[in-house]
């Protein structure tokens, strides 16, 4: 049935958006993960990517989470000479995660997720209306 395929397409959107939210949660959780000792890198922000793929079974273009890339922007620095990861000048490198950016990304993912839920709800109503023809 074609409407079931619609639900599957929307479900692929749900899955991709929830994967994106997972990556964002990783970034948020690691906002303070500095290196354990000097010379090592702190946590590097990860960026989820989306890609469109044609699903032959559904005959539709579904979305899926692509490779999770690394954000190559510069790390921040903080002056903390007593820290085990401090360099000779007393600076500790901090992760390149901006919580404000992550929060906005998360909000956007949430909205897209809700939009897909809306599509599923509407499609379910369409299915039950079609079944109502049987009742006459």
């Amino acid at each position, binding site marked *: 049935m074609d*409407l079931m395929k619609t639900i599957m397409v929307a479900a692929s*959107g749900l899955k*991709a958006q929830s994967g994106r939210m997972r990556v964002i949660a990783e970034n948020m959780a690691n906002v303070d993960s500095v290196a354990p000792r000097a010379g090592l890198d702190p946590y590097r922000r990860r960026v989820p990517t989306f890609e469109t793929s044609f699903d032959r079974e559904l005959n539709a273009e579904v979305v899926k989470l692509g490779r999770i890339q690394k954000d190559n922007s510069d790390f921040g620095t903080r002056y903390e000479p007593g820290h085990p990861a401090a360099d000779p000048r007393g600076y500790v490198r901090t992760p390149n995660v901006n919580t404000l950016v992550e929060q906005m990304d998360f909000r956007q993912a949430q909205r*897209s997720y809700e*939009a897909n839920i809306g599509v599923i709800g*509407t499609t379910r109503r369409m299915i039950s209306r079609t079944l109502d*023809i049987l009742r*006459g």
Partner: protein
Amino acid sequence: MSITGLNVLGLLKTKMLWHQDRQRVLAENVANADTPGFKARELRMPDFGQSAVSAPASVVMASTNPLHQAPMGGGAGRDDRRSHTFEITPEGNSVVLEEEILKVGQNAMDHQMVSQLYSRSIGLLRKAISRPA
């Protein structure tokens, strides 16, 4: 003669299939709302031809006085040609989520209308073959 051979029921069935397909296309748009480079798509209206459906004649008021104003042209219906979207993000995605959700709702309402018309038509047939009371 099968039921789907009837003119009205055949048309309604085509319309319902069209709504199903359109729902799938709209779901693709919503699912790919954040995919870079994705272009929003839309399904063309089914062409029932001139013979199948004749446009209902609109009722116009008679003007008996030269001072009477002509009625406003066109109905209050929606403009189907305005379906192309107006916003493209820097990453090349042209899906406007609000617009798509609006279309999904509209599609579901139209589908409901067609399915109710279908069951009404079946009811008419049932009434025709039922035993008179």
